[in-house]
């Protein structure tokens, strides 16, 4: 009985972990690009949330649509202006460029904001909790889970049910052939990168509300996001959410067993999945 709250809290944070990896999974699944600047995007969005919150005094949750929109634009510009130029030159150029980008962004943020530890202020929200069936559940984690899950559902509907989603799936299958039907795949790639960064920015702000960050936090977020992608596996948009839940529960149970373990247990889960089920929990074998 004692373990139930731990597992519940693991699931609550797991939704956010899943959302942290969703943008990375989407971009890799559609464009076969591993965006190594993913962690910096998370931190940048948290900083944007921090500044808008301090400047306007608006609850960061209400800022989410604006921040998502800004990062959608950044994503589109990044893909169309930079990454599309590297298509068809093998997997290495995008890796190098996004790696360079991550280093640049990290140090620019370090120059601009210093190494201080920040946290987005959401007033008394982190301290409110509900009491359900004898358990106390934080409202902020609950809202975080709700928003994260909503993002997954929304993306699944867009990709699975709309005409745009059909074009995205076809482009992922064969970007040469879609051109013969009049699709400009460069534009589609831009929109997908925009979507990915918008989702990532939502995750970044939510993360910045519940834990601290510095300009240099991106590296650990990137690692976590990669673990989400690998554990979840490609082939299903729900993979990252399942992986997030698994990581969240393993993380908190691990911390309970060994308070100084940090991310050791999620890392072990990652290792185990690679060993036993390299296609991931929800992964399909894809050609």
């Amino acid at each position, binding site marked *: 009985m004692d373990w139930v709250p731990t597992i519940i809290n693991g699931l609550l944070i797991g939704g956010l972990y899943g959302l942290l990896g969703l943008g990375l999974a989407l971009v890799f699944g559609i464009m076969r690009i591993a965006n190594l600047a993913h962690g910096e995007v998370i931190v940048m969005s948290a900083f944007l949330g921090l500044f808008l919150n301090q400047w306007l005094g608006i609850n960061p949750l209400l800022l989410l649509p604006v921040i998502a929109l800004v990062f959608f634009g950044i994503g589109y510009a990044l893909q169309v202006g930079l990454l599309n130029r590297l298509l068809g030159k093998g997997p290495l150029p995008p890796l190098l460029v996004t790696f360079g980008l991550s280093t640049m962004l990290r140090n620019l943020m370090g120059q601009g904001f210093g190494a201080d530890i920040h946290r987005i202020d959401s007033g008394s929200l982190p301290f409110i909790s509900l009491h359900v069936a004898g358990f106390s559940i934080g409202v902020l984690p609950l809202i975080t889970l709700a928003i994260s899950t909503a993002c997954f559902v929304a993306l699944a509907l867009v990709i699975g049910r709309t005409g745009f989603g059909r074009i995205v799936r076809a482009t*992922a299958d064969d970007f040469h052939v*879609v*051109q*013969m*039907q*009049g699709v400009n795949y460069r534009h589609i790639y831009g929109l997908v990168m925009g979507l990915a960064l918008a989702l990532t920015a939502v995750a970044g702000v939510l993360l910045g509300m519940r834990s601290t960050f510095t300009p240099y936090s991106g590296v650990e977020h990137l690692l976590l996001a990669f673990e989400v992608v690998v554990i979840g596996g490609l082939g299903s948009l729900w993979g990252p959410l399942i992986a997030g839940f698994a990581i969240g529960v393993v993380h908190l149970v691990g911390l309970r067993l060994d308070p100084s373990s940090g991310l050791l247990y999620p890392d072990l889960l990652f290792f185990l999945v690679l060993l036993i089920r390299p296609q991931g929990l929800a992964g399909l074998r894809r050609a």
Partner: protein
Amino acid sequence: MPLLEVDGLNAFYGDLQALHEISFTVDEGEVIAIIGANGAGKTTLMRSIAGLIRSRAGRVMFGGADITGLRADRVARLGIASVPEGRCLYPSLTVEENLAMGTAARRDGPWTLPAVYDLFPILREFRRRPATALSGGQQQMVAIGRALMGNPRLLLCDELSLGLAPKIVGEIYACFDRIRQSGLAILLVEQDVTRALQVASTVHCFLKGRISLSGAGSTLGIDAISHAYFGG
């Protein structure tokens, strides 16, 4: 004015010249066939017209506009649809979603989902299945339907009969009459010479990237074709 006018087209794969000074025309509503051995440059020609290969010299005019070097998606939107060699269906999409991809060209006209299902009734039955779960002939129907859904003025068909049983090929070519009745022209690459001579008003034979023989199907003798086909 012809619908499509290819004038002195040269195309390259790297440093290898695959097409030399190709010139021919396709009129509105006409069926033209390209025949030739493997490696004669037939597919290169199709890909050059579709905008997938940039030509370094020569000109392609379509409906009075110069489309040389135009990006492939723009060419498609102007009304040139392709049924690519090997069909190239999207494995992640259902039959109906594959067909609907044709509408990405954003062209209105007679070809809609009901019209395509009317042409190939079997596809309506299988519309929820993954496209690659169908038989080869049915997949070819999906590829043709997908191209028609873009309501093109010119249809490029590359090796429709490749890997299909003769009976199935016959069924697919049988639908050509109805496609032509909707007013579009067809440029066809075909290894099956007899088939090409049957359906096309004019046949061009390719040999090593050059047109070695041209003429109406009925006027070409088998010896002349054989000579133009194999060289020597």
